[in-house]
């Protein structure tokens, strides 16, 4: 265990005013993005990418990580106060949180949410830190052969978990991989898919892919809807019984209520511990993003309660379980992102793109050469969560004003800064034209329920896969498939596809066809 590095990085973070200042800016930004329904952390990351271009690796990574760490904390605010989830995972919080608001306990629900998300975030970070010495020998034993198979596994995982269509997920993931081949071929040096354009020789930038697939479609969609949020039918169904109603609801928040909610977290300490560890471990699996983690934690809370009938009607444990889950998984999903280059969630895919832009190359070198960055990110998660709870408690009675920004104000700024981010990457104006084409495709994906995260993951993993395959063949020949870890990874690839097929067959049986 790198205890010396761990404490040295903490000391550096706490004694570097620039880093502390940036984290103090990043945290309210994260809360803002999380608390504004329809925006969320992915868009927050996208918007901040241009601002980290000139930062050094550590500063940029800590800034983005601190912002992303508290997005879910902010996401609980509109869930609790108006019954509209700020982001996907917050839908689980809305079930009991909004019911508490209707009972006049908004402050208590918010206090429980802040306390649970902070403790969840801290325990998740601890999980990541403590798992490093266990993972280190495994990661360092990975050869290029395993990294190639891991890239394929990453795509398969994301495709199997990307909604109801494995085929769509695979198409988008493979398309991302194909786009990663744009540029000069590493073995022959000949241009591929460049159409005679020299500016494409360096390949498709991950940042351009990220901004095209997330920022542009979200803004077009926001402009089309004309409002910042849209509760899905599924979420609305889950919120039945606690849905917004015409009857007057008191959203008054007092400090006493907030502290009462935080005391509830202490009262449910074992639940918080169980949910944190469960979800941090689940977060390691690529594709099981925040939504699944929050619902799993909520499900565990209901199952382990002596009074399951109270849930959905304003039970504070429901808020605690869901919030702990959605915040604890962030640290877990950082693990595959940093050490294998396989993002744990779509938010982490964007984060990985930003890391690559900053020159942070994921892989075993993160443990050998850049372990200080790993620990800085772990501490950034810890400090950001603590800062967030302090700021939110201080904001106390005025907190309801968060998340009320008009969509029309956001659209032009996000478009200008997203396009600026694309230009700044290499100073290539043609990237703006590329964004226009790919952003339109991204909107079509969004409009017709095609998953977009596999595209980003494909673009990121494509280069890793090609580089690793060439090295693996050079080192072991075609026999690299028979290495023990390779066989495990191949089994995992087959298992994930098999699991998908089994799941879809089961759901087909469960839902009789009306055709």
């Amino acid at each position, binding site marked *: 265990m790198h205890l010396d590095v761990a404490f040295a990085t903490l000391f550096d973070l706490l004694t570097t005013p620039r880093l502390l200042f940036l984290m103090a800016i990043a945290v309210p930004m994260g809360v803002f993005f999380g608390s504004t329904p329809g925006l969320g952390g992915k868009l927050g990351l996208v918007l901040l990418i241009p601002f980290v271009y000139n930062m050094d690796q550590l500063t940029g990574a800590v800034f983005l990580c601190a912002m992303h760490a508290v997005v879910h904390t902010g996401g609980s605010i509109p869930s609790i106060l108006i019954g509209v989830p700020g982001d996907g995972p917050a839908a689980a919080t809305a079930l009991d949180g909004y019911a508490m608001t209707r009972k006049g306990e908004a402050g208590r629900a918010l206090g429980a949410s802040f306390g649970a998300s902070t403790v969840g975030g801290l325990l998740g970070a601890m999980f990541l830190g403590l798992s490093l010495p266990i993972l280190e020998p495994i990661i360092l034993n990975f050869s290029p052969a395993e990294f190639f198979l891991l890239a394929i596994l990453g795509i398969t995982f994301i495709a199997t978990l990307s909604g109801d269509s494995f*085929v769509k997920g695979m198409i988008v993931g493979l398309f991302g*991989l194909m786009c990663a*081949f744009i540029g000069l071929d590493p073995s022959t040096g000949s241009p*591929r898919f460049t159409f005679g354009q020299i500016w494409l020789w360096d390949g498709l930038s991950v940042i351009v892919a990220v901004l095209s697939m997330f920022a542009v479609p979200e803004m077009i969609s926001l402009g089309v809807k004309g409002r910042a949020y849209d509760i899905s039918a599924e979420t609305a169904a889950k919120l039945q019984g606690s849905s917004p109603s015409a009857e007057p609801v008191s959203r008054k928040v007092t400090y006493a209520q907030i502290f009462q909610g935080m005391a509830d977290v202490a009262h449910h300490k074992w639940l918080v511990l169980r949910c944190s560890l469960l979800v941090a471990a689940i977060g390691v699996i690529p594709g099981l993003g925040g939504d699944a983690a929050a619902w799993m934690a909520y499900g565990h809370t209901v199952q382990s309660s002596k009074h399951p009938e109270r849930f959905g009607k304003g039970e504070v444990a429901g808020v605690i379980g869901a919030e702990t889950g959605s915040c604890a998984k962030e640290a877990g999903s950082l693990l595959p992102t940093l050490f294998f280059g396989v993002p744990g969630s779509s938010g982490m895919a964007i984060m990985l793109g930003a890391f690559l832009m900053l020159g942070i190359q994921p892989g075993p070198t993160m443990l050998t050469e850049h372990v200080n960055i790993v620990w800085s990110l772990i501490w950034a998660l810890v400090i950001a969560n603590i800062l967030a709870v302090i700021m939110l408690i201080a904001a106390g009675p005025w907190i309801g004003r968060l998340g009320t920004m008009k969509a029309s104000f956001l659209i*032009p700024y996000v478009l200008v800064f997203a396009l600026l981010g694309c230009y700044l990457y290499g100073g290539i104006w043609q990237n703006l034209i590329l964004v*226009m084409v790919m952003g339109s495709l991204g909107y079509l994906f969004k409009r017709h329920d095609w998953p977009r995260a596999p595209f980003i993951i494909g673009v990121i993993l494509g280069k890793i896969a090609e580089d690793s395959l060439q090295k693996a063949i050079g080192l072991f020949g075609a026999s690299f498939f028979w290495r023990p870890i390779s066989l495990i990874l191949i089994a995992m690839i087959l298992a994930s596809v098999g699991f998908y097929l089994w799941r879809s067959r089961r759901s087909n049986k469960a839902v009789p066809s009306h055709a």
Partner: protein
Amino acid sequence: MLEGRILVSVIMLVAFAAAVGLAFTYAPEARFLPLVIGIPGLLFSVIQLIKELRERPEPVVTSEEQRREGRMFAWFIAFVGGLVLFGFPYAGPALVAAYLYFSGGERWYVALAAAVFAWAVLYGVFELFLGLPLFEGLVFQWIFG
């Protein structure tokens, strides 16, 4: 007219077919992985297209929704076009103000204040503070060389 969901499948099919076709023109080492990835992608695209063609037609999109989509795409193209032609320091604030005034329905002084804020961030933060030179646009490059 093609339904949107079928259009997406067709786009993906054409993209993979073109990529696989192009890959065959490359040297054996250079075409290996593009073919390994492209051929399954092409097959999946065919499966998806068949699936889409066999599914029931999706509900008709209202003309109001189509109009809003068209308007947003027009704005998006205007943003890209404006920034490519006139650059970030000039077109950025102007586009922010124009969007807020014409599409957001804000008052002229609100739009103007938003434009000033955009200019302050673009020029102040990026040019002065971060030292990142902003693209000045093809028109200004052509005029001033």
